[in-house]
C-alpha cells in the first residue's frame, strides 16, 4: 500500500470536493475498492461518478442483477402508488417467468387482473392504481438518459457516504418518476415503526 496521506496532486485535483466532505473522507475513498454488477445506463453513470470521487479501484461485472423482493406482509402500511404498482409488475414477472423489464403493453390484461387480486388482499381500491400507470410501467423497457443520470447520481452519493462514513444513508429505497418530477425515499425496511 502507498502513503497514508493524499499526494499533493490528489489534494489539488480533489480540492472542490474535499471542501464538501473533508480530507479524511477523501482518504478513505482513495483506499476503497468497488465492485459493480450489471452495466446498464444507470450503472454506467454511477461508475463515472464513483471514479470521479477518487476511489481506489473499480471492478466491472456484467451479470444479471438479482431482483430483491421482500414479502408483502412486511411492507409498511403506507406506500406510494408507484411503488405498489411496481410490485404488481414484479409479481407478474415472477408468475410468468419473465426477466425484469421483459414486458410490453400486451401484458396489460393479465397485469390488471393481478392488480385486482392484490388490491383485494391489501385494501387499496383498484381505482387508486390507475391503468395508465401500469401501462406506462409495462411499456418503458428502454432507458431514458436523464433518469439514468439522476439515479446514477443518487447512487453515487450513497456509495460515497458508505465508504467515507460521512452522512446518513438514505433509508432505504429511492425512486424517481419523471412524469411528476418527484424523487421519493420510501422506507421498506423490516422495522415496523410506522404508525
Amino acid at each position, binding site marked *: 500500500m502507498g502513503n497514508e496521506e493524499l499526494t499533493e496532486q490528489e489534494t489539488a485535483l480533489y480540492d472542490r470536493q474535499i471542501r464538501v466532505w473533508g480530507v479524511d473522507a477523501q482518504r478513505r475513498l482513495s483506499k476503497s475498492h468497488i465492485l459493480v454488477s450489471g452495466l446498464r445506463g444507470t450503472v454506467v453513470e454511477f461508475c463515472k461518478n464513483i471514479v470521479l470521487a477518487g476511489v481506489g479501484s473499480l471492478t466491472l461485472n456484467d451479470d444479471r442483477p438479482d431482483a430483491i423482493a421482500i414479502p408483502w406482509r412486511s411492507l409498511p402500511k403506507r406506500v406510494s402508488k408507484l411503488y405498489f404498482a411496481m410490485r404488481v409488475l414484479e409479481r407478474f414477472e415472477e408468475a410468468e417467468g419473465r426477466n425484469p423489464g421483459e414486458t410490453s403493453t400486451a401484458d396489460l390484461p393479465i397485469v390488471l387482473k393481478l392488480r385486482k387480486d392484490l388490491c383485494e388482499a391489501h385494501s387499496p381500491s383498484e*381505482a387508486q392504481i390507475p391503468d395508465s400507470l401500469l401501462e406506462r410501467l409495462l411499456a418503458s423497457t428502454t432507458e431514458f438518459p436523464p433518469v439514468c443520470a439522476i439515479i446514477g*447520481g443518487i447512487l453515487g452519493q450513497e456509495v*460515497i457516504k458508505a465508504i467515507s462514513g460521512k452522512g446518513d444513508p*438514505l433509508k432505504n429505497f429511492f425512486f424517481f418518476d419523471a412524469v411528476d418530477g418527484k424523487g421519493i425515499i420510501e422506507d421498506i425496511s423490516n422495522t415496523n415503526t410506522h404508525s
Partner: protein
Amino acid sequence: MASDLSVIEGAKLLMVGAGGIGCELLKTLALSGFKDIHIIDMDTIEVSNLNRQFLFRQSHVGQSKAKVARDAVVRFRPQISITPYHANVKDPDFNVDFFKQFNVVLNGLDNLDARRHVNRLCLAADVPLVESGTTGFLGQVTVHAKGKTECYECQPKPSPKTYPVCTITSTPSKFVHCIVWAKDLLFAKMFGDKNQENDLNVRTSDAASSSEHAEDVFESKKDEDIEQYGRRIYDHVFGYNIEVALSNEETWKNRNRPRPVYVRDVLATELIQQNGNVDKDLVAGDPLSVSAMASLGLKNPQDVWSLMENSRIFLEALKLFFLKRQKEIGNLSFDKDDQLAVEFVTAAANIRAASFGIPLHSLFEAKGIAGNIVHAVATTNAIIAGLIVIEAIKVLRKDTSNYRMTYCLEHPSRKMLLMPVEPFEPNKSCYVCSETPLSLEINTKRSKLRDFVEKVVKAKLGMNLPLIMHGQVLLYEVGDDLDEDMVANYEANLEKLLSELPSPVTGGTILTVEDLQQELTCNINVKHREDFDEEKEPDGMILSGWTQPPAAEKDGKESMGNGASTSSASQAIPLETIGDDDIEIVPVVTEGVAPERKRKLSDTSNAVTSDLSSVEHGTSSKKKPQEIDDDSDVVMLEDGDSGISKKKRLR
C-alpha cells in the same frame, strides 16, 4: 416516447456554460438524442475542475472548455453537431437575433451577472430559459417562459455579500473581514497598482509633522535590505496602525480592544535573522512554484498555524515576492491559484485575526474564503443535468402545465429528496419583464451623472452597455461606433452634476435608461431629496418600485465586497424560501385543464393540501370513490391475505 424523439431530433439548443453542470448536461443531451447544440463558455480548464468536469483531462489544462467539451462528446456521438464559442456571453455578437435561432436556452453559469444578462436576452428573443445552479449537495432547476412564468429576475436574488469599509479597516469581528483586509487592502497596496486609491493607513506621523511631510511607509528606504523592509511593514500594519486605532476611545467603548503585534513580540531574535531557506528548497525558474510554506517546511495546508508561524510565513512570502517576482510587483492582483499570494494573504489575515481575538484559520480555509471557492461534487451536477433535460423536453413539447421548478435537497423533506414545485406567474412589479416604472430619490444638485451610471444603472439594474436619455436628449451611451466628439461629450457629462447637465435633471424629470443588447428599457421618475442618512443610505440615492434583494450584512456604510460575485450566485436558492410547511405541492388535475398558476400563499392553512399530508392529517380527498383518486400518491395497505373486506381509506 415517439413524440419526444421528433421534438428532440429537430431541436436547436443553446447551452451557456461548459463547466460543472455544462459537462454533465452536454453528455446527457447527447445520449438523449439531441443533434444540434451550441455552447458558449469563456473559461479555460483548470486542475481543480477535473474532479467533476469529466469531459476534460489533465492534458487539457489551459484549453477552452467549450471546445474540449465538444471534442469529447463528438467522440462518442460522431453524428452530433456541437458549435463551441470560446467567448463571453455578454459579447455584443450574442444579440437577440442570435438567441432567436434556438428553441430553448440552458444555463450552467456560475455568476449572477451573466444570468441576469441571459435572462433579458431570452425575454427579448422570446425563447424559454431553463436555469440551474449547484453548491455541494444542493441544487435547483427552474423554467422561465415569457408571459407564462416568472422571469429569472422576478424574484430578487441576493447580491454578493459586502462589508462596511470601517469594519474592514478598523473593527473586524469575523475572519472574513481579516481576509478582505489582507487581500483588497494590504496585498493590493503592496503588490498591486500603486496609483489605486486604498483605504489602508500608509502614513506614519509624528506629533510635529503636517501631512506634506508624512511619508509613505511602503516606499523602501535607502540602505534597507528586504528583511528589514519586511519587518518594518509588519510593525507598521500590525503594530502602529493598531495603536492609532486604539487612540480613538469611542470606537472601543462597546468592543474588545485589539492588541498591537510587533515582530519582536512574536519571533525570537535568532529566528529573525535566518527566517527561511531561500536558496535550498526552491524549484529553479518557475515563479509560481515559489512558496513560503516550502521554504519554511510547513507542509500541510490544513494545519492552523500559530501566530509565530503565520508571522514567519508573512515575512518569508513578502521576501520571496520581492526577490523572485520583482517584475510583477505593481501589476499583481490576487489570484486564488497563486500559491505565494494565498500564503501571504492567509498569514496577514491570521496575524490581524490574532490581534483582534478572532480565531485563526488554515491556508485551505483561508484560500476558500479569499478565492470565493464554491465547493462542488460530480453527483449533484449529474442529477441537476438530468432534471434540466427533462424540463427542456417539456419546453420543446410546449407542455406548459407540467413545467416544474425542482429542488435537490441534501436531506429529504416529507420523504422527498427531489422536490418539484409549480412555477409562479410573472411578478407584475418586475421591472425586467413587466416594464414597471421606477422611482429614484437623489440629490440632483450634489450627485454626478457618473454616480447614477455606476450605482444605479450598472450595479442595481444590471445593464451592460447602457444608454441614458432625457426626453430626446442623449445624456450618455456606450458603443464601438461612436465618434470622438460624442465620446468626449459623454465623458464630460459624467462629471457634471445632474442639475447642471445640458438637459438638466431635477425633481420630476423622467429618465429613460436602456440596454439595446438586453432589449431592456426602464423609465425612472427622479425625485429630488436634500439629505440622506450616511449610515443607512450611504449611496445617497434610493431606487424603488422594485423589490430589493436581501443583502445580508449591510449596516449602512460604504461597502466592500469579497471579490467576484461567484459564490452566492452559483448557489442554490436559499432554502428559507422552501421550508417544510411552505411548499405548495399541487396535485395534477385530472380534468385536462391547465391549472392556473397561483401566487405563492404565505399562509399555508389555506394552501392546497399537499399530496402526502392529505393522508397524514386525514383531510378528505373530496373525490368520489369510483373516480381515480389523484389527490394522493399514497395508498394504505392492510396486512395479509386473509381476504377481509377492504377498509375505507383513512379519513
